């Protein structure tokens, strides 16, 4: 608006000057002034043209996330500015900004402020995490996927089929990405995530190659709904913000409704999670989505008071002592039966859930190649996961319900 108003004022002024100065005597002056006029109007014309495409940058609207803390979407007029904060563990100082730009749009520096540009429309996309696949699936945009990382870990049948047909390529895993394949896919954007700062190398490499990158940090969210809310960020790539909001709100409502049902339970059983690596138990702290799920399902997480950024390696004997009052044991890694757990370490038979048989694992939807849908579509269905957990801890609350992601481990 500001720039438009300036040019509107200039035009009549110049015309006025011209009118005053038309005197036959001073041709030279007229000549100069005409030149100036031509120059000035051509400039103004140009400006006017540009201003038609210029966004209404005065209107800055930040969407407020309901649960997620790791990203923000700000609308500068027509532009969407995405900000990803804390893209990996312990990276409070790091943030990434992305500006979504439609074809033919010019970006004013006043908005860009060093942000990376992502050109729309997005028609070719590479996913490096199964959660990215799940989000695109929920948005109905799996047809845009041209490359994935770690195809074995994916459970989405349509994607699996297209990998088999060669329509989707596997670009390798972790840091060992196959850059030649990646470049040959000509992706409009590569979705990546980082466990540590090692990803910055990959980001620079992709930038050098002229490939846009969008960092995802949904796995760091401390709330299951916060994780799912990242679909809003993904949706902006396709201009599907409203669809994502509707989808998210309906799942969130469902989740909150289920959660409210457990608030009045009298007995909140204590729940143990995880499985040790040899004699070291990497304990997941209490400020994680894992713990939030248990709490929402009307139970108590064994380490609910433990706050940490990362899992903490603990001695098996102190875990054993703490697990003495646990009633349920969930998320037991790769173990498919209680017998397997005991064969890893016979001392697990002292754990109360093992002797009472109350061991449940989130492996009901694991496919032949080892992909677990809990980590894929589970992201988009925190309500179903919560329903599973409530059915496990409080079977009387919801009536007869078949478990979806979880299964009871057989002895």
């Amino acid at each position, binding site marked *: 608006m500001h720039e438009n108003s300036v040019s509107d004022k200039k035009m009549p002024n110049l015309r006025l000057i011209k009118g005053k100065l038309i005197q036959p005597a001073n041709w030279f002056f007229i000549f100069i002034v005409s030149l100036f006029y031509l120059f000035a109007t051509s400039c103004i014309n140009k400006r006017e043209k540009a201003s038609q495409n210029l966004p209404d940058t005065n209107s800055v609207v930040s969407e407020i996330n309901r649960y997620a803390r790791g990203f923000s979407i700000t609308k500068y007029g027509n532009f969407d500015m995405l900000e990803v904060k804390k893209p990996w563990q312990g990276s409070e100082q790091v943030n990434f900004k992305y500006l979504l730009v439609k074809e033919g749009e010019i970006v004013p520096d006043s908005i860009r402020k060093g942000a990376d540009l992502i050109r729309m429309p997005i028609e070719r996309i590479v996913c490096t995490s199964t959660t990215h696949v799940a989000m695109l699936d929920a948005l109905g945009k799996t047809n845009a996927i041209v490359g994935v990382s770690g195809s074995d870990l994916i459970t989405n049948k349509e994607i699996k089929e297209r990998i088999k047909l060669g329509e989707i390529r596997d670009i390798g895993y972790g840091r060992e990405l196959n850059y030649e394949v990646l470049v040959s896919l000509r992706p409009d954007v590569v979705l990546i995530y980082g466990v540590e700062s090692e990803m910055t190398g990959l980001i620079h490499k992709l930038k050098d190659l002229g490939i846009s990158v969008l960092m995802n940090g949904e796995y760091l969210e401390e709330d299951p709904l916060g994780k799912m809310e990242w679909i809003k960020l993904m949706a902006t790539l396709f201009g599907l913000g409203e669809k994502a909001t509707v989808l998210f709100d309906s799942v969130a409502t469902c989740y909150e409704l289920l959660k409210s049902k457990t608030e009045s339970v009298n007995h909140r059983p204590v729940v143990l999670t995880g499985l040790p690596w*040899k004699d*070291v138990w990497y304990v997941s702290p209490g400020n994680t989505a894992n713990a939030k799920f248990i709490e929402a399902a009307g139970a108590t997480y064994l380490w609910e008071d433990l706050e940490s950024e990362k899992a903490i390696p603990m001695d098996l004997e*102190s875990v054993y002592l703490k697990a003495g009052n646990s009633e349920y044991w969930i998320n037991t890694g*790769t173990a498919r039966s209680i017998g397997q757990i005991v*064969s*890893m370490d016979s001392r697990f038979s*002292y754990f109360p859930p093992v002797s009472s048989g109350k061991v449940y694992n989130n492996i009901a939807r694991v496919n032949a190649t080892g992909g677990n849908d809990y980590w894929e579509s589970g992201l988009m269905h925190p309500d179903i996961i919560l329903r599973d957990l409530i059915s496990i801890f409080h079977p009387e609350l919801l009536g007869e319900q078949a478990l979806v992601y979880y299964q009871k481990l057989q002895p």
Partner: protein
Amino acid sequence: MSEPNKASIHLKKRRIAISMGILFLLGLIFFVLDIFLGSVHIPAGDILRILTGEAAIKVEWKVIILDFRIPRTLTAVLVGAALSVSGLQMQTIFRNPLAGPYVLGISSGASLGVAILVMGFTSLGFTAVLDNAGNWAMVIAATLGSGLILMLILSVSVRIRDIMTILILGILFGSIATALVAVLQYFSTESMLKSFIVWTMGSLGNVSSGQLRILSFTVLLGILISLASVKILNAMLLGEDYARTLGLDPKTVRMIIFISTSMLAGTVTAFCGPVGFIGIVVPHIARLVFKTADHSVLLPGSLLIGAVFMLISDIFSKLPGYDQVLPINSVTALMGIPVIIWIIIRRKKITSLS
């Protein structure tokens, strides 16, 4: 022999006997401390009551002492003794102060076995088979891996006379194994890598009571073979030619020592992962303490020092009073390396072997 010489020999023998006695006592003290200290605080009185078979106040405490701490402490003693004895043997056979239990490529071979199990098999879809094998799977994989490298070394050592060539070949075989492990690591996922890395960091607390029986049987047998070969080790110290003049066939001698070393280091690696530095450092400490090259002293001495060293490392790695733990391999390295640096600086060189 003159009188003063006899007296000095007598004095030396007494000094050795006293040092052995002190080491044995230290071993006992740290053995008890290792049982008494841990992440969970249990009052000493209750531990004594549990050990004497009286009813414990808390059932959990009884389980912690009997099923967690005692097997772990026994494992620490066996690991320390086995690695130190095999390290000493290797230093003598190769006449190299930097030799250790793993110069034959045993740990590299074991890593290859475990790497194939953890990172190769899972990718090939053998998960179901492995899951049912529990913690035996890694033990068997490590044994097969180190067995393969040992077979290579033994078949070479029958043909090759020069011991240095065998040393170099051992390093080369080990490097091949390491390179293969790197290839496997390159293509594996985070969870596979984590599982493998945790194995390489060593662990004392994951040996079940059945496995402890196998571990102690093999280690004791290996140590018996070493004790029986004290004389040939002493002869080998003076060179293979000298050994030959005594009527010993160097190749047979080597074979015996290699077999006992792989029994000691191989079993320990299979059950506890490649526990580093003990095998190199402890023989030097033993030479420093006993000031002799006689294996009838150095062997039991290394055994005791190794056990004490490992018990102390274990106590540190448990961080008594805290829930957290440190990997045992880092603790042995952090404790072992300063010792070896101190020895080098003090003596201006590594203690000579003979």
